[in-house]
């Protein structure tokens, strides 16, 4: 009895291996081609650094989030001189260690920057994924039923959404739902699936004319089967490219909202750090506070773009001329 199930299991695993081998092979070949693109590798490296920051902030940050400058030396109370020196420029050694200086509260900039990585990654991945989840299926449906009323309806919805300026529209959405990180992500997803949808639609329109789709149709495959088994696998690489771009756009949108004062003030994010500089009037006085959050936003958004565009090269190789 037991041997029977074992062999059954073994054969199941074997058949599973059989089925997955070509996919793994394809993935490996894709990966090899991807790693030839220096830009994509750079993007991955940046992303890995930020992921490490997000996972183990205590290892990378010099202090904990509760740390304040001077509090170690003079518990609870600052002298007037010390309070005046905040935000403090970068200092090494005594009386405290702040490699990137401090903000007006005496929090270490490096500490804040490292601890905000998780927020940026969360917003990027969540918003990118959500807008793909809306845009890709709609694009598939719209393309597959090209030039019917279904396509027409979806395209008119896209038209209407294009007519609304993205950022002000996002402000209204966030104002309606309340300013939380989740609502900001939802708002970004609602407003940013358009490009996704249009490009996937175009790709689907050309794919559905291919002979293998025709033959599947003749073989009697249902519409859903054709869309999900035959067309979707071919648009997925493109969808990933757009996921990466949406993620980058989402991070930038969140920073813009924060600039306008529409950020979750209980969270800690790079956009919020920039908003704090502005609201406390240190924009031109504390370069050590102004530069790092902006550079981090730029790096993470660029990393997403790098990976996305390298993937485009991998999935859609242009002939070298």
């Amino acid at each position, binding site marked *: 009895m037991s041997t029977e199930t074992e062999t059954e299991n073994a054969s199941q695993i074997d058949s599973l291996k059989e089925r997955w081998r070509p996919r793994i092979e394809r993935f490996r070949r894709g990966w090899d081609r991807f790693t030839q693109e220096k830009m994509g590798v750079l993007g991955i490296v940046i992303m890995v650094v930020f992921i490490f920051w997000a996972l183990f902030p205590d290892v990378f940050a010099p202090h904990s989030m509760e740390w304040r400058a001077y509090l170690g030396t003079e518990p609870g109370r600052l002298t007037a001189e010390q309070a005046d020196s905040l935000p403090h420029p970068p200092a090494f050694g005594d009386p405290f260690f702040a490699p990137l200086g401090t903000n007006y509260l005496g929090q270490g900039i490096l500490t804040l920057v490292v601890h905000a990585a998780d927020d940026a990654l969360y917003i990027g991945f969540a918003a990118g994924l959500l807008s793909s989840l809306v845009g890709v299926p709609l694009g598939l449906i719209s393309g597959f039923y090209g030039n019917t009323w279904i396509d027409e309806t979806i395209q008119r919805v896209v038209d209407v959404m294009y007519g609304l*300026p993205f950022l002000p529209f996002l402000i209204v959405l966030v104002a309606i739902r309340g300013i939380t990180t989740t609502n900001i992500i939802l708002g970004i997803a609602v407003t940013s699936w358009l490009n996704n949808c249009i490009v996937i639609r175009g790709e689907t329109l050309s794919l559905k004319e291919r002979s293998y789709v025709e033959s599947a149709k003749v073989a009697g495959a249902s519409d859903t089967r054709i869309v999900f088994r035959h067309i979707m696998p071919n648009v997925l690489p493109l969808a990933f490219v757009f996921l990466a771009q949406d993620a980058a756009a989402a991070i930038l949108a969140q920073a813009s909202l924060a600039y306008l*004062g529409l950020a979750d003030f209980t969270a800690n994010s790079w956009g919020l750090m920039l908003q704090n500089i502005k609201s406390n009037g240190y924009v031109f006085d504390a370069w050590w506070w102004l530069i790092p959050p902006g550079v981090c936003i730029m790096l993470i958004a660029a990393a997403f773009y790098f990976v996305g565009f390298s993937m485009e090269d991998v999935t859609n190789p242009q002939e070298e001329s």
Partner: protein
Amino acid sequence: MTRISARYLGKRLVVSYLTLLVIMSLLFVLIRSMPGSFIGSMITPELDQSDIKRLRETWGLNEPMWRQYIDFMINYQTGQFGRSPTYKEPVWDIIIRRFPRTLVLFGSAFIVQFIVGPLVGMYLGWWRGTRKDKSIFTSSLAVYSMPAFWLAWLFIWLFNYELGWLPSTYMFTKFANFEWTTLSIIVDVLKHIALPLFSIAFVSWVGAMLVMRPAMNNVTGEDYVFLAQAKGLSERTVMIKHAARNALIPVATQAIVGLAFLLDGSVIVENVFSWPGLGQVIVSSVLSRDYPVSQAAFFMLAVLIIVMRLVTDIAYTYLDPRIKFGGDS
């Protein structure tokens, strides 16, 4: 000469108009679903219930929703935008004063974007895969990833705060004591527009480049490019005259995407530079729940986008002789 039939144009106009109507309805619903209302800021402890009721009546908030909706739809199409409760003046005055200023900033950024972007894209697409292409492409993506307002701050810091070359706020010098001749006004505006324009254009040209680069790369394989090369025309002539012209078509298609991106950029940048345009008004009126003004500002931006879409569609026909709209092709 004209390749656009009246029938096609008519159809496009009707569709654009219907789109605008839907956008207006959406605006009405969305803006009214924001919690709170502008009445809140007018209510003071001295007012009793009847005063508040009168206030609501004055601003038409006591009417049923469908009635307000119909009024809104009719009034907007006849150009009656009503009065603003927070600005204390007709909405039309606010909009008409600020719209041209947004158009100046935004339009010049649009022009810069669509000169620089396609040019760089043309160059990179032609030399795709070379080291030059890769390094320029990577660095422009990095530029594309900068938060617009942060970049604007860096510019203000450098050019205004440190070097003192350019002003960083408003469109004109306030309380200026120089002669208000046409020339001095133009110079003054140019000085004031430099930093905001530079901040927007520095980032947004990359959007146009991103479309131009693959388009250019696609046309390099076309027969007519080989033919032109075989004729012994110089590399530059082939690149600009033969390849780029055709690669511009998808750029025109995608211009609308760049347009939306540019508008976002200018909303933020207007706020940074206190540029007295619509972008600034739209943010503050949404935050203060000033329905009449925010609706009108959204409406104007939507009209701008829809008109630009129509224009880009028509621009195709002049770029690509193969495209023929509405004719019997």
